[in-house]
């Protein structure tokens, strides 16, 4: 890299200045969200101020003790985690095929996969709604308002992303490694689980965390394709915006709470993110 040992003192001042400014810009909105979450409605509409004079705990206590909200949180965790695992598994299989087999039309399949992420979501609400309420049904059961419905739906925009990311990672694993294992008489399944997956593990971790975040944050479909049972935390957030006015304090508190699982997840896997994406970019 161009960053060899010889960065000048001036260069270092620049680097630190850049990062301090970036950190401030990053933190101000989040801190502001925290400030709002600590205020009652009355305090909120006074003069803007950075200081939290008194902490209005009700904003946190009320949603946290509310069974509906707890269900939203559990739904979000279940949906995002299942979706991330499912997407990562499918993407590993698919990109292994795309990278190792010369399938007829595989370039087109790859590109088509990606186009699934490009469509503006709103127009697809109606067909998906019809699909979920009229087509996928067994007796009284329909896919509408189920966790599995959202888990499968999120595959449509997470799989393209995961396939794109994993394709680079798969292409980066030298084909000689699988060839050698095949010569030693290993089956394809053994090669995949013992050679490919361990080598791609960091990349898989990246795929999991990023798809997890995308699924965790999705709102539009979650709001339209669920009603009671499978509502997620983002739809819960939107429910604070009501006709009688927005309950900003509780909304901010819920937003803060909803960041926590992702934050824990991120800190654990951040090492892998850097390693993982790194591996994906090793090419040629």
């Amino acid at each position: 890299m161009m960053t060899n040992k010889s960065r000048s003192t001036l260069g270092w001042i620049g680097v630190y200045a850049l990062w301090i400014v970036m950190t401030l810009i990053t933190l101000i909105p989040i801190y502001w969200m925290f400030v709002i979450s600590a205020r009652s409605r009355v305090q909120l509409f006074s003069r803007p101020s950075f200081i939290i004079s008194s902490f209005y705990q009700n904003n946190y206590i009320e949603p946290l003790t509310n069974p509906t909200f707890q269900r939203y949180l559990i739904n979000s965790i279940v949906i995002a985690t299942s979706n991330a695992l499912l997407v990562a598994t499918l993407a590993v299989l698919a990109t292994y095929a795309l990278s190792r087999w010369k399938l007829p039309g595989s370039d087109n399949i790859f590109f088509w996969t990606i186009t699934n992420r490009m469509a503006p979501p709103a127009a697809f609400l109606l067909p998906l709604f019809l699909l979920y309420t009229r087509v996928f049904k067994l007796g009284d059961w329909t896919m509408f308002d189920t966790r599995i419905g959202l888990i499968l739906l999120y595959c449509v925009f997470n799989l393209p992303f995961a396939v794109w990311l994993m394709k680079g990672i798969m292409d980066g694993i030298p084909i000689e490694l699988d060839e050698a294992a095949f010569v030693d008489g290993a089956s394809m399944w053994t090669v995949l689980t013992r050679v490919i997956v361990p080598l791609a593990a960091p990349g898989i971790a990246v795929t999991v965390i990023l798809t997890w975040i995308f699924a965790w944050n999705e709102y539009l479909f979650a709001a339209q394709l669920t009603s009671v049972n499978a509502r997620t935390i983002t739809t819960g957030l939107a429910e604070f915006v009501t006709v009688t006015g927005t309950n900003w304090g509780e909304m901010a508190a819920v937003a803060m709470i909803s960041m926590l699982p992702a934050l824990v997840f991120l800190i654990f896997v951040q090492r892998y993110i850097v390693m993982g994406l790194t591996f994906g970019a090793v090419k040629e």
Partner: protein
Amino acid sequence: MRSNRTGWGLLSPTLLILIIIGLLPFLYVLVVGFFDWNVFSATGRPSWAGANNYRRLVFDSDFLFSLRRTFAFTGIAVGIEMVLGFLLASTLVQDFPGKAVFRTIHALPLLVAPIAVGATWRLLTIPGLGLVPFYLDRWFGFDYRTGSYATHAFVTTVFMDVWHWTPFVTLTMLAGLSSLPREPMEQALVDGANRAQVLRFLTIPMMMPVIVTTLFIRLMDALRIVDEVYLLTGGGPGLSTHYVGIYIWRAVLPRTDYGYGSAMSLLVLYLTIVLAWLLFIVLSRVGRQQS
């Protein structure tokens, strides 16, 4: 071992899900695009309209305006994100005290749901309540009002998007940069090249695959942005931040103008694919020439 059957077998679960939940609705939208269908119309049933919806599109000045705005927004926001992300990532390749802290804080915005991002930024910028208008007025005497000035609203949405998505670019760029082999760059520096030349002729061409992937993902997501902007500005003032995702959403949901919404959606999808394809060709050609 490498029979095509096995290959298709590995691909099939992915294709199956994408065909059922991606392609089927797409075909439905494709068909509905040829119908005039508004639940609130006299009949409430779809009636064949041929290419009328598409004809309507071309003359819908609001839609075309919103499309132009979307491209302007995407171009500026993604442009800033790519450059800033690359710059930040290139400082992170080397170890320095505090790096882990900076990196973790930098990734925080990714964890905030877009809908909460929109709400937070709205609270930051609401006149009378928000910090931004308050301090801009107090320190600079600047009259900042996202509700009244189109430019202010537009710039705020760009700034919000940059705030939210630069960390994503930084992460992918960092990964790409730290995986590059060091020898060619060091050799070039020894041979008397300056840093700018190394960046221009070695680092950027070698980073091309990562840059293209990141750019595409950002472009796709920025072109279909809805929730953040809608909560921040409500698409206003006027139509200034009524980006195409919002425009389609508003046509489909409260107005239930399904036929027209489908047609708009397909046009945007088509434009995105063409844009991606063109960029792909241009960038891969530039990459090949330089390396």
